[in-house]
Structures are given as structure tokens and as C-alpha cells.
């Protein structure tokens, strides 16, 4: 029996990847939860409009960070700002009474705002826009839609190339007259369709079961979803090309999913994340898609406010896709000689003398 124990110890000691996971993961989670996991909001971006704007500014508690203050703007400008996610609270001082508008899609900021304002009896009852009942499902369903796209896009796609490698058919593809680009597209195309169908189903079911609104333009959400899919699919193929087996692929896919769930603003608001962690959110694609999906579905946001997340997704997509294609080419056909397409040409590959090719699985 001791022989078995000793053997197992020896194996574990050598398995650096698992050891790292056992020690690093908990530490990482500790740090993240310490700095990111918070529902408390310290500052709420606010706009103040109307004639008595500057006066109102001074009266607001510290919690409200005034980002814009314009006497010339009126209520509809304020609403636009809220819709575009530029601010969470708007104080409208034009008209007889000052009105306070609160963006209901930022649940925790809204709640903090309401609490702070209720302490001042002279302030009238704030109006909650967009998600009047402060309904959690209204803002969760759009975020979950993003998560579905990650599941289909990254996790399932990552298995595609690995499966091919394991069944031995990848070799053959490398020899056939396919370009790496062809194989790449072939691996990715069906999942685009599946993801699109999935998205429609989730939104449909969400609207039906949870009364999630759909205020904005469908094409805008579609565009956001398309760009987001580029990123997730590219990531899936990238993971595929660095994984030796399906287990590894799934491991990496989960590792790419987990931080996005925790840090994209899906559960914990970005506003309450410590600055030292917040920068990570801005690197995550789900962050931007969630902004788009929540904005379009619940607030009816238009392109004016969404150009930034859309652009970010486009940039991320481009970077990851390029990486994936390069890696794919390197992985699939590392030393393939560029050939002329004339049918009767004889291909001649000359050795360079001292240059060595990329190392493969080992000489056989």
C-alpha cells in the first residue's frame, strides 16, 4: 500500500500545472474577491441640468460625482445621458420642482442613490427610468446572453480542432490543398449559426418568462453580438491550437470564462471594483458586450453611446483572430512551402544548409 502512496506523491510533485492551480487559483480568487467583489458603490456619476444647476451641484452629497453640469440642457438631454450610460443619476432643475432621475439598470448604484436621497426630506421622490422595478432579471438576462455566446463560442469551438488532432485527420488536412485560412473558417462557421440561434432563443425566453424588455434596435444588438462572437470564436480556436487533448481545452476555456463572469460587471458592478482591479475589466470582451446588451435591451441605447464598446470589441476581435490564424498556421502546417498553383509544376524545396525547421513532436 505504501508503494501506491509513494508513487502518487512522486507524480503529484512532478505535475507542475496541477500544483500551480492548487496554489495559485485560491490566491487569485482571494485577491479578486477581496478587491472586486463588492456591492458597495462609492461614487455615482451624475449630470445636473437646468437653470439652477450650479446651486444644485453644491447641495448634492459627496456620493454623487458630478461629471457634467449644464444650465442650458433640459430634461431630455439628461435622459439621453442616462440612456447612453454616461451617468447614473440626473438632476433636472428646470421647471418648478427639481426632479431626480435614476438609471434603473445600474442596480446597486441606483439603490445607493435612493438611500442617500431619501435621507434628505426636501428632495422629491426620484424617478427610476428604464428598469422601474429595479428588477434583477432585467439586467441579468442580457448578461447571460453574453455568457451563452462564450460557451458556444469559446468552449465548444475549442474542442473542434482538438478533436480533429486526436482522430488523426488533422494531418491529412495539412496535406490537402487547403490553406490554413480555409480550415479555420470551416472550423468556425457552423458555430456562428448555432450561436445566433442560441441568442435569439435566450432573449425570446427571457422576454417571455421574466418580462425582460427590448427597447432598442435589434440590429445594434446583432452587431454587438457579431463582434463579440468574433472574439469568442477566435479565442476558442486559439485555445484549440495550444491544447493537446480535450481535457486541456476545456480547462483553458473555463479559465477564460471565469474571470469574465467575475469581473465583467455581470455580477459585481464595475463601479464598486477597486481601481487596482478595475483595469482588468476593460480588457474583457464580456464587459463590452454586457454594456451593449443591457444598453440596447433595457435602456434603448443608440449607437451614439455604444460606439465605444463596439469599437473595443472590434479591436479585440481583430487582435485575437489574427493571433488565432497565425497560431493555426504555425500549428497546422508549420513548414509548408509556398507553392505555385500550376498543375504540372514540380515543387522543389531546398534546404537552407544551417537553418533548422521548427521542432515537431520529436524525430521519428
Amino acid at each position: 500500500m505504501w508503494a501506491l502512496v509513494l508513487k502518487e506523491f512522486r507524480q503529484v510533485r512532478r505535475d507542475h500545472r496541477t500544483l500551480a492551480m492548487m496554489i495559485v487559483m485560491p490566491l487569485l480568487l482571494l485577491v479578486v474577491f477581496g478587491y472586486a467583489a463588492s456591492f458597495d458603490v462609492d461614487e455615482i456619476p451624475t449630470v445636473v441640468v437646468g437653470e439652477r444647476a450650479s446651486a444644485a451641484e453644491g447641495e448634492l452629497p459627496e456620493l454623487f460625482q458630478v461629471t457634467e453640469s449644464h444650465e442650458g440642457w433640459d430634461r431630455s438631454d439628461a435622459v439621453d445621458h442616462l440612456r447612453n450610460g454616461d451617468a447614473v443619476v440626473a438632476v433636472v432643475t428646470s421647471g418648478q420642482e427639481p426632479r431626480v432621475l435614476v438609471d434603473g439598470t445600474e442596480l446597486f448604484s441606483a439603490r445607493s442613490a435612493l438611500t442617500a436621497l431619501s435621507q434628505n426630506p426636501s428632495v422629491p421622490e426620484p424617478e427610476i427610468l428604464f428598469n422601474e422595478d429595479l428588477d434583477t432579471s432585467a439586467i441579468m438576462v442580457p448578461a447571460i446572453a453574453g455568457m451563452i455566446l462564450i460557451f458556444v463560442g469559446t468552449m465548444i469551438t475549442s474542442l473542434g480542432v482538438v478533436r480533429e488532432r486526436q482522430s488523426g485527420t488533422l494531418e491529412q488536412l495539412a496535406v490537402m490543398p487547403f490553406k490554413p485560412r480555409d480550415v479555420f473558417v470551416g472550423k468556425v462557421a457552423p458555430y456562428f449559426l448555432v450561436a445566433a440561434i442560441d441568442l435569439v432563443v435566450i432573449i425570446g425566453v427571457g422576454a417571455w418568462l421574466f418580462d425582460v424588455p427590448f427597447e432598442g434596435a435589434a440590429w445594434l444588438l446583432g452587431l454587438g453580438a457579431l463582434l463579440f462572437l468574433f472574439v469568442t470564436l477566435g479565442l476558442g480556436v486559439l485555445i484549440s491550437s495550444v491544447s493537446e487533448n480535450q481535457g486541456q481545452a476545456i480547462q483553458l476555456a473555463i479559465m477564460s470564462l471565469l474571470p469574465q463572469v467575475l469581473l465583467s460587471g455581470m455580477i459585481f458592478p464595475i463601479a464598486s471594483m477597486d481601481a487596482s482591479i478595475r483595469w482588468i475589466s476593460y480588457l474583457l470582451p464580456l464587459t463590452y458586450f454586457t454594456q451593449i446588451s443591457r444598453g440596447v435591451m433595457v435602456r434603448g441605447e443608440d449607437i451614439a453611446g455604444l460606439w465605444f464598446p463596439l469599437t473595443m470589441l472590434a479591436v479585440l476581435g481583430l487582435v485575437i483572430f489574427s493571433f488565432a490564424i497565425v497560431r493555426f498556421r504555425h500549428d497546422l502546417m508549420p513548414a509548408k512551402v509556398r507553392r505555385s498553383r500550376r498543375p504540372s509544376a514540380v515543387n522543389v524545396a531546398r534546404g537552407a544548409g544551417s537553418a533548422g525547421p521548427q521542432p515537431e513532436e520529436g524525430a521519428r
Partner: protein
Amino acid sequence: MFVSAESVHKDFGGFTAVKDVDLTVARGEVVGLLGANGAGKTTLMKMLLGLTTPTAGRVELFGEPIGREARKRIGYVPQGLGLYEDLTVAENLEFIAKAFGVEAPPLGDLAPSKGVLVRDLSLGLRRRTAFLGALAHHPELLLLDEPTSGVDVLARSDLWATIRTSAEAGAGVLVSTHHMEEADQCDRLVVMAGGRVVLSGTMDEIVGNTVRGSERIESFERRFAELAVA
């Protein structure tokens, strides 16, 4: 008789892997179990090892039904070699030796690779290590599943030399293989196809004494083709 299998039958749900097979292995003989992948060789071997129970028929080792005692007298090398990739040669052998309660075997030619992880060894050296491990407790019966596939002619010859030496020392050996080239190395052959035994006897009995060289293999394949068209 070290191994005695009579009318052995194995069903898996709707599929019959082994049909009515008789097999014996006596002391000191090397019996070759020949057949393609899927012919039933590995399933048959598993039944001889007691890893699976036959649906019908009888298997006896050393004259008795299979029991824990018999295991100690068997040396088995599976197709996948059964070595731990992330342990060194020495660690693997140490583990096997301890499991059987014997001394770790001397490494001989493997000495220079003692501290190398099995993962980093060539196939030939891996097979050599697996063999050493299987022989460590001086078994009376050796069951080897495709022990020489993938290695070059010289390494194959060396492995067969080890098998022969064990047989000469009194062990009974059952070797499964899918290539006819190995047939000449065995004292007796049992050829399987589709779960059944289609040919058995010595190579000479099967192809005739006068046929030589590569013609023996062609002649063998012809006889097989005649019988296996089922």
C-alpha cells in the same frame, strides 16, 4: 497446463467478441495469438487474466479457476505498456517490485536511462522497461499484448530473445500480435478472426515445411483468406 481455456465465449450486449475459443499454453512454450485489431485477442487475454468473466466456457490457470493466487504467478504487459509516464524508469520498476513484494530487478542495458522519465524514452526502451517490470517477480506465465509493435527489427529481435529466455527457463508465454512476420518466432499459433479461431498449429503445419522465406507469409495469408471469408 499453465493456461487452459475451453469453449470460451464473451458477449457485450449485442456484440460477440469471442466465440467458442479453445486455447492452451504449456510450460516452456511460446504460443502466438494472431489476429487483426478487433479479432478478439485482447478480450480473450483479459478473460485469461481474470479481468473479465466469460459469458460461457471455462478458463483455468495452473489447473485451477482464476484467483488472487494465480495473479502473483502471472506477468502481464498490456498494449499500452502500463507504465507511469511521469515517473522515471527506476521509480516505475521500484513501484512494480514493491507491489509484488520482490526486489527491484537489475537494470542491465537500461542503467543509463535509470533517471529518465518514461515520457521521454523511445518506444524501444519503454518496451524494455515494461518487460523488466513484468519479469521482476519471476512469473511462471507471461501474457504479452502486442509486445513488439512499432520497434525496429533489431529491437524486436532482442525482445524476442528475452521472451525465449523466459520460456527456456520454464515459463509459459502467450504473445498476441497482428503481424504474420512474428509468427515464425512462436512454437505454436492460434489465429483469430471475428472472435473465432480460424487456424491453429505450428507454422510448418499451416504452411507446409518446404515453403521458405517471405513465401511463408504469403502462403499463410492465402490460407487465412481461404478460411476467413465468412
